[in-house]
């Protein structure tokens, strides 16, 4: 396989932009990459795909000098290189968008954009005006609406993701590495990125593109390499392969095997959209009470938000970047003060001042920023997964390790969570597996209402299917789910109906069966 690639490249006559041979890397005795060959041509967009924990991020972090390899060779434009740090790689013309983001929360957008390369006057003073100007220009050029002076801590996950992309682009590198750049982005921002990639490609920039969205990969990439368990399983031009083949290679089984399809929606108690509820009672059927209802809720960022989720329903929240989807979840979960209006749980008005109360009432939230809001990175998988449960327990509650281990293992199994030793700090898990830890935490407490904010970010296909199944089943048990996702396919696939959020208000509602295209159209 690699021989063929080599041929193709040498046919082009030039040395590849980047070539790795026999890369090996282990952490604390765990071999993560085992003899990986990889070649990247100038002017190509080269996808690297694989399941969570396959070693994709580790591979690119070796290319970028974040980690030091244990074996193998690395060449940049034909010259052997050895990067001791990202800084060294940066100087050689490599820029990277990190999966876990590399932003300093306490600093501004502009400062982050030009991190470590801030414009200085001849005398060495920081030139703030030039910094702001350059930031504004770059953001405008990329079509990103961000105030250069905003503090990064205030940005949403999507805004941070865009900033991270802009930051890498700003380096004008010859080799650009993107590790799941669209995990938090919706179709519209992704499209912006793809246009940008085509332009960079035209300028001869070599791009490594890591993603779990094979649709995107096949839309924008020239070649696709598949990593499986730390080995390069295949490498082919996208034109010469298919999604099914790639999926099979990722999973390590023959193409066509079952298990790739989205789950069929389980039969649920008849879903009753808001409008239908009135009809229900009018028809004389016992009026059913919504499990979760918002009546004219207003917060600092929301106005007049009303909707209801009935037992057995999965309701989607669709909207553009910054439309207020997360704010709606925040209002329910006690994170934002409800200034007027009412939140009702099973028909009874509730006042929720803290997440603690929310969880006590059977509401859980999967937050959109896993590392900031979801995980204590130094704690191990079990302690993170059980955090919510420990939070509800009486302080002196005695913990039974065996019992805990079993429940964590069960959750991990349901989600396909792959953690080499649950006793290790989650800092060292792959991005997707970290996301699965946060999900497992949500599932660890008994809840009636699940608020999911971008639950699929960074999750591989298998995991995603597992989650969709779990959501489906959870609803089928008579519970309620509110789902925020930038992936309209997910929303279309699992939601009973979808609320359109615009400028902090509910702007409309789409019934089930509209499909991703329908949602996209409605949002325009």
């Amino acid at each position: 396989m690699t021989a063929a690639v080599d041929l193709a490249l040498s046919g082009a006559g030039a040395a590849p932009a980047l070539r790795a041979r026999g890369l090996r890397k282990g952490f604390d005795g765990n071999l993560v990459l085992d003899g990986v060959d990889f070649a990247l041509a100038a002017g190509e967009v080269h996808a690297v795909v694989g399941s969570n924990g396959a070693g994709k991020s580790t591979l690119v972090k070796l290319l970028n000098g974040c980690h030091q390899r244990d074996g193998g060779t690395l060449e940049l434009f034909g010259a052997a290189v050895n990067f001791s740090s990202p800084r060294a790689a940066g100087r050689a013309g490599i820029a990277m968008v990190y999966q876990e983001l590399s932003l300093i929360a306490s600093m501004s957008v502009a400062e982050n954009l030009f991190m470590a390369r801030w414009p200085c006057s001849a005398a060495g003073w920081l030139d703030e005006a030039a910094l702001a100007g350059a930031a504004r220009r770059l953001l405008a050029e990329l079509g990103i609406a961000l105030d250069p002076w905003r503090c990064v801590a205030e940005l949403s996950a999507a805004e941070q993701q865009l900033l991270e992309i802009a930051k890498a682009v700003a380096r004008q590198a010859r080799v650009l590495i993107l590790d799941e750049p669209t995990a938090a982005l919706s179709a519209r921002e992704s499209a912006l990125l793809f246009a940008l990639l085509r332009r960079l490609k035209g300028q001869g920039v070599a791009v490594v593109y890591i993603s779990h969205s094979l649709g995107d990969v096949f839309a924008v990439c020239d070649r696709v390499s598949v990593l499986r368990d730390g080995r390069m399983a295949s490498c082919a031009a996208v034109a010469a392969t298919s999604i099914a083949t790639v999926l099979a290679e990722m999973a390590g089984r023959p193409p066509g095997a079952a298990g790739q399809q989205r789950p069929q929606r389980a039969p649920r108690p008849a879903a009753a959209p808001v409008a239908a509820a009135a009809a229900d009672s009018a028809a004389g059927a016992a009026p059913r009470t919504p499990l979760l209802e918002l009546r004219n809720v207003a917060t600092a960022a929301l106005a007049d938000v009303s909707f209801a989720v009935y037992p057995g329903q999965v309701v989607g929240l669709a909207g553009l970047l910054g439309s207020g989807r997360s704010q709606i979840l925040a209002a329910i979960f006690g994170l934002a003060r409800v200034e007027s209006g009412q939140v009702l749980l099973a028909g009874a008005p509730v006042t929720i001042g803290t997440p603690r109360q929310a969880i006590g009432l059977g509401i859980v939230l999967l937050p959109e920023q896993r590392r900031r809001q979801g995980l204590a990175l130094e704690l191990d998988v079990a302690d993170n997964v059980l955090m919510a449960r420990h939070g509800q327990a009486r302080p002196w509650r005695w913990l039974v390790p065996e019992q805990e281990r079993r429940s964590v293992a069960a959750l991990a199994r349901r989600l396909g969570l792959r953690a080499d030793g649950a006793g290790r700090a989650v800092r060292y898990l792959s991005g997707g597996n970290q996301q699965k830890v946060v999900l497992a935490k949500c599932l660890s407490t008994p809840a009636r209402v699940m608020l999911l904010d971008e639950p699929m970010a960074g999750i591989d296909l298998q995991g995603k299917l597992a989650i969709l199944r779990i959501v489906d089943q959870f609803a089928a048990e008579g519970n309620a789910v509110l789902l925020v996702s930038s992936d309209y396919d997910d929303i279309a696939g699992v939601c009973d109906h979808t609320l359109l959020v615009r400028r902090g208000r509910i702007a409309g509602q789409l019934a089930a069966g509209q499909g991703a295209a329908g949602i996209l159209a409605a949002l325009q």
Partner: protein
Amino acid sequence: MEQVVNRSEAVVAPQRQHFAWRNYLIYLVFAGLLLLFAVLLRDKGFLDPANLMNIARQTAVIAIMAVGMTFVLSAAEIDLSFGAVVALAAVTAALLLPHGVLAAVLGALLAGAACGLLNGLLVARVGIPSFLVTLGMGGIVAGVTRWISGLQSIPLDHEGFAFVFGSGDIGPLPVLLLWMLLVGGLGHVLLRKTAFGKQVLASGGNKIAAMYSGIDVPRVKLQVLLLNAVLAALAGILYAGRMQSARYTLGENDLMMVIAAVIIGGTSLFGGKGSVVGSIVGALIMGMVNNALVLMGLNVDQQMILRGLIIIGAMTLTMGRLRKR
């Protein structure tokens, strides 16, 4: 699908506790230093059972304070007032002893608890950084202690009290050692085996994530400061029992030693990581080094230099990046 199941099973189930050998280096360092001193000081009585008991006695109270501080640092807070609380509790116990042992012990613990509660309320409810709250509280408590004691050393003239709280020996073992084991054991269990311990580590590891997970972070911070102050009060009682007197200077020099013991033991100054057993071993290392330096017959200057070198050397072995990353 089945695939996923099998794979994840294989991956999560096996080692519940991944053996992080670097976390155990500190025990090796402890053993190494013990061996070193045993050889170097073989003619100077280092290994005498009596001297080993001296080390235990001299370290026990520090170790007890280190247990409390482990919780505080694990929760990403700090307590600079505990030295003053030690003295306040000792003086309170001494002043109340004429009214009975129970009054003395309860009074001292209550005085400590009051200080801890105030610290906790100011940190958790008012939102002032614990460094400043406890710096201020330390001054207030020290001033009060000086005032109520009139700068005098107050004798504790009660054999039973002295025996139980610091001076006695049970068989060959000093009661102080038993106190240390008791507090250490309870502390270890509290941090590792109860929901409270998990809440402390989560709050210190990531306050926001802990809050999102329904942990009452302010309450946890209040509780660790309270716990630490109560342990400081216990330390004060034990100091008083051991010295059979109490005065305002007790505890004033222990701050750095206690924090150092905790950090040597592997607890992070930035929260989220803590080990009670590590802290106790850290305290034992510090105590053993001090003891050995004195036995070596060095003068104070030399002791200071060598102590610094040993701390840095030991930490190079335990925490230094052995391999390039």
